């Protein structure tokens, strides 16, 4: 089971009108790993994640999740997606948000209630669940957003820049949560433009201008290029300047 491919992209491309955002891309993400996508903004990370989440249609190429072809209604249930925008209803309470989104996944009754408490516990928001989201701090909103993405117990979690604009303490706590999820057997794909976060991933793909320029574990990437840091690896492969 461990070696099953959770995500398989084959020659995937995406174009908006005449601009190609994702050039022919192939990628494999294995079961149970934390896979990072590193690259400057504009590299196409978000577009790639959106295609995997089923929100954006690929222009060409094939996309398979859990050995099944996307898009598929059945697969959608296996995915938890946390976008860059919080995607929360600001005039509802935290609990009301969770209730609404869990209903979208057909959850109800005791199961729904238990699951809501579980994710609230996980992101440490139990004490604030009755508060209206408008009054949440930025970090609390990010955590609630993560909680929503985890509600329906997805096997694959897609996180688009989950730590952007978040203080180091909170960033650490989000990463701790990701490790917890990994232990539970979830596969996690996380995008970031912060180099030191890339070190925390099992494997990572470096993206630049709509193409993947390198794939591997942080250590092997460093070894191959005889680099000390991820940043050097990026410079080695990309050749260009890095403007995070």
């Amino acid at each position, binding site marked *: 089971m461990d070696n099953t491919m959770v995500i398989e992209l084959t020659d995937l491309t995406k174009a908006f009108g005449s601009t190609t955002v994702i050039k022919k891309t192939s990628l494999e993400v294995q079961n149970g790993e934390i896979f990072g996508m590193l690259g400057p903004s504009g590299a196409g990370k978000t577009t790639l994640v959106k*295609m995997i*989440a*089923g*929100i*954006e*249609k*690929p222009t060409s190429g094939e996309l398979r999740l859990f050995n099944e072809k*996307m*898009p*598929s*209604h059945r697969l*959608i*249930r296996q*995915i938890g*997606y946390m*976008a*860059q*925008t*919080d*995607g*929360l*209803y*600001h005039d509802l309470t935290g609990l009301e948000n969770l209730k609404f*989104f869990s209903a*979208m*996944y*057909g959850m109800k009754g005791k199961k729904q209630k238990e699951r809501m408490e579980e994710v609230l516990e996980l992101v440490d928001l139990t004490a604030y669940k009755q508060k209206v989201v408008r009054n949440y701090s930025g970090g609390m909103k990010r955590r609630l957003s993560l909680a*929503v993405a985890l509600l329906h117990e997805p096997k694959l979690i897609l996180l688009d820049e989950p730590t952007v604009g978040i203080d180091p303490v909170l960033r650490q706590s989000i990463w701790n949560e990701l490790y917890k999820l990994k232990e539970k057997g979830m596969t996690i794909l996380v995008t970031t433009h912060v180099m030191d976060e890339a070190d925390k991933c099992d494997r990572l793909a470096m993206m630049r201008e709509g193409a993947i320029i390198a794939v591997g574990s942080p250590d092997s990437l460093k070894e191959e290029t005889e680099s000390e840091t991820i940043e050097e690896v990026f410079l080695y492969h990309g050749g260009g300047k890095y403007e995070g």
Partner: protein
Amino acid sequence: MRVKAITVRIIKQFFHDKRTLAMMLVAPLLILTIISLVFNGEDSVPSIGIEQVPEPVKELLKEQKITVSEMDQGDAEQKFREGSLDAWITLEDNQPRIVLEGSDPGTNQMVLNIVQQAIQSPGQKMKPDVEYFYGTEDMTSFDNFGPVLIGFFAFFFVFLIAGVSFLRERTGGTLERLMGSPVKKSEIVIGYLLGFGFFTLIQSTLIVIYSIYVLDLLMIGDFIWVLAVTLLCAFTALSLGTLLSTYAHNELQIIQFIPIVIVPQVFFSGLFDLEAISDLVSWIGPITPLYYAADALRDVMIRGLGFEEIAINLAVLFGFSLLFSAANILALRKYRSF
């Protein structure tokens, strides 16, 4: 220097937001043109039916700016129902009798003046019996355009609120989240209709009750039909508002739909004399939802008509809602790959 920088920045921003620029420059011209076409059209010519009217009076009537044709009372009543006749005049025992269609106080007054002039030969005082087919003598202008306003306000506010809240769904990322969940696009649209429908029902009931019982608006027909029309009108506004919000990037652009979508409807909904509107733009009315809502509301409130007579209007409004909702479901496709 700073003033200059601010000035330049604002001018540049305008040029980057072409739609706002166009709205500022073009919308006033568009609306003024519509207004001029609505008000500068030919004066509406009252259409009057006569029976057994003495020749001299007939001649005098024909000299007036009206259309005169012979018909009996049965025909006249039929034409009143169709809305193609304004008055019917006859002579009973040497006493002129005028039956007015009655739903528009302005037209009533105009017809009465014309007829009085025609039959008032010098030295002869004749007071005609005046009857009203619809409405009463006491009917005010508010009674005439009040029903249109009920429809208008229900439409206007629901359109704005629905448009903005659906827009927020997109800009706040919640729509994206929904699209990543197993929910069906039709479920979102129907959910919106029902959720807003709840408040729309309250709003419509309140508007109708207040207008009739507090503002004393003329109300002859059945309350339930007024409510039904208002509700359907609001549903149309709701589905149109959510549909158009797809084409707006921010709240300002929703507001910009007002001069394009709302204002023209007002001109063609019957607040102004529809018969006097220039042929150049008279086709606009029948493609706007408010036209049907206003017509049905007047039919019920002023003319006391029931379901059979407003069924077509209700069906058209329902059709509009259905059409806009279907278009909205299609528009949502761009937010999802399946």
